[in-house]
């Protein structure tokens, strides 16, 4: 209350009228209200509603029934498909994140080491980032096509015809194939970020290392990577979050099949919500909530761990 009355005095009184950085409540509202309204209505409220949903079973014709933690109990203890999806998502996240980040670093180093026409390559290598998941998905479905896809054609040309297979059709290759397409799309992104970080490195340090008779490899491991630590951590976290939620590409390329081998948490949520013909949004909401909590926990742990080491180092 005192805050409000002070604010009101601010509007009416003369004190605030001349402060360049003070503003009346009305003015603040005018600037903030549109953003806050949109945000509250279509981001905050949906989140709250999802949490609410997760404790309910939603039946046809708007019947909502409170089930407590029933949904969560079913998910955790009686839903093998969920655990299959968790396993797939975890594998996808770990592998794709590592390849994305360190592959991106490799590409960036490649350009940083003055590969011929690096400026042009930088633009070309970044192009896949701009394409939608639909475009990437369709292209890669074709690349993996058994009959006329590029993957099998290349194997055939180089004399490895024996390895031709239905890449997306077999549980042992499907997840890896989707992962490949995902990595293809995002490598360029990580590369660009690393490249910016590399150019921001103080040249004197690299020069000093050269004077210390550092070879390229030594320089990479003893100087460059340690100095890029902040960037690496950032990209790892960013990439990690993105992959924990992977949906579009999987949905487009395999729909979670064959035999649940590419089922991710997100595709499972979508399936339970819209493909299972149950009209129940409670159960999938509970999965989404559970997964969100897990993601948050991971982010917290990752940043905590990595920050801890920072403190030790400096």
């Amino acid at each position, binding site marked *: 209350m005192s805050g409000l009355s002070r604010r009101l005095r601010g509007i009416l009184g003369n004190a605030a009228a001349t402060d360049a950085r003070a503003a009346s409540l009305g003015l603040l509202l*005018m600037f903030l209200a*549109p953003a806050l309204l949109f945000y509250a209505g279509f981001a905050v409220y949906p989140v709250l509603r999802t949490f609410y949903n997760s404790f309910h079973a939603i039946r*046809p*014709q*708007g019947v909502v029934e409170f089930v407590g933690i029933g949904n969560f109990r079913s998910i955790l203890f009686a839903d093998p*498909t969920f655990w299959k999806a968790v396993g797939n998502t975890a594998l996808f996240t770990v592998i794709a994140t590592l390849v994305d980040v360190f592959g991106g670093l490799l590409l960036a180093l490649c350009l940083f080491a003055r590969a011929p026409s690096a400026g042009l390559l930088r633009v070309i290598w970044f192009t896949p980032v701009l394409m939608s998941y639909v475009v990437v998905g369709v292209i890669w*479905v074709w690349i*993996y*096509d*058994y*009959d006329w896809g590029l993957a099998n054609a290349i194997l055939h040309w180089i004399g490895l015809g024996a390895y031709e*297979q*239905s890449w*997306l*059709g*077999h*549980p042992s290759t499907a997840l890896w194939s989707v992962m490949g397409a995902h990595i293809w799309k995002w490598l360029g992104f990580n590369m660009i970020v690393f490249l910016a970080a590399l150019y921001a490195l103080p040249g004197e340090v690299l020069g000093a290392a050269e004077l210390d008779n550092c070879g390229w490899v030594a320089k990479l491991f003893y100087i460059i990577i340690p100095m890029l630590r902040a960037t690496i951590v950032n990209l790892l976290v960013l990439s990690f979050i993105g992959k924990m939620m992977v949906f579009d590409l999987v949905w487009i390329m*395999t729909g979670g*099949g*064959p*035999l*649940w081998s590419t089922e991710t948490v997100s595709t499972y949520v979508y399936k339970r919500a*819209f493909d*299972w*013909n*149950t*009209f129940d949004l409670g159960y999938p909401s509970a999965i989404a909530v559970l997964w969100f909590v897990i993601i948050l926990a991971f982010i917290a742990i990752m940043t905590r761990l990595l920050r801890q080491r920072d403190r030790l180092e400096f």
Partner: protein
Amino acid sequence: MLRGISLPLCAAALGLAVVAAPLGGRAQADDVTLEVWSHEADQPAKVAFRELAARNVEKAHPGVKVKITWYEKNPMLAALKSALPAGKGPDAFYLEPGFVEYITAGYVIPLDDLIDWNNIEPWARKVWIHGGKTYGVPQEAYTNEIYYDKDALKKLGIELPASGQFTQAQFLDVVKKTKAAGMTPIAQGVGDRPFPGAYVVGEALLRKLGPDDYLRLFTGKLSFADPRVAEVLKWTKEVVDAGAYPKNFMTLKLGESHYYFYLKPGALMLPMGSWYTGRAFVPEDKGGQPANFPLGVMQFPAMDGGACNECKTSAVGASFVINAATKHKDLAAAFLNAMSTPEMGKMWIETIYLQTGIKADVKNFSGPHAAYFTELMERQKGAKYFIGAPQDLTTGECKDAFAQVLNSGFPGGLLSVDQAVQMMNKSCYKG
């Protein structure tokens, strides 16, 4: 000052305009538009059939406009699933008998008093009766058949018995011979449907178990560990292991499997519902079957010791229902009736070459595909029908297991017999 205020005002006005536009757009005073959603956008004959019925309704009811929105199946189901709970959606829409949840959820209304049932075959109507009330007007009926390439079979030096049915051993032999000749025995893919991969095993189970136990199997009352089921699965596994299915079975889509069968790279057989021709009989340049393709129809193989080798699956497919939230119940019923007259039934058969639940008196077939339809009718002689398909009999988790295991993993060669039995039982068997 005015200039200063204009910006947020503009933003607000823009926002309002955007929000308001779709709300205000649809007002009409007297003209009534009947909204219909229909699947099978890519089957010109069916499109023509339903559009004709729509025009007939419009002629009979001046001021009424019947607007059919044509969909692919999955997007349409997605659209329905979201529109219906909100009390929205079309007045009438396409539905198949398997989607019982629309009835239990109360999204569609009983049609007993609205439809002229004299025009409908009783066996077809029966499919839509739940709790004594009829919820859908059956239109399409089909049987599961194995389509095959007559020339190719001849080239392999194999002759189809007069009954049109191989024994299970003969069938396995046909598969092996075809494979040896470098041809794919069975064109089939499960890239976008939860059932085609299970045609062979499903029909085999029906013949082996007979209708009653077959029904019990898919309603959770009979274990998949039953020795007869195991025998069928073992045989199927042999067929699969003989290389019956294409390598890209898992990702091949329904439409692609048709193309695979009659054009490239070509296959001996294509197990499919008899609605196959709805898409195959479109012009060749639209992706249809070549005009001179030697299309034959055979029965699914007879099982050794089968309880009912003359059995075959017949099912009602395309049907129409009325949205419980409609404001034009009678008009919607009029449209459904307009599609079900004997004349329309005749048109259905003559232009679509497919069975129907509409009573139609067609004696003399004509047209380019008359021979095909005669052969199809030939295969129905003496047949004992089981009405319903597994994907329609199962629900929830069991349905998912059916799609993943019997439809895809097992025929895809990814699962052993024991694994398949175990997975199916876990999800389906309640005994």
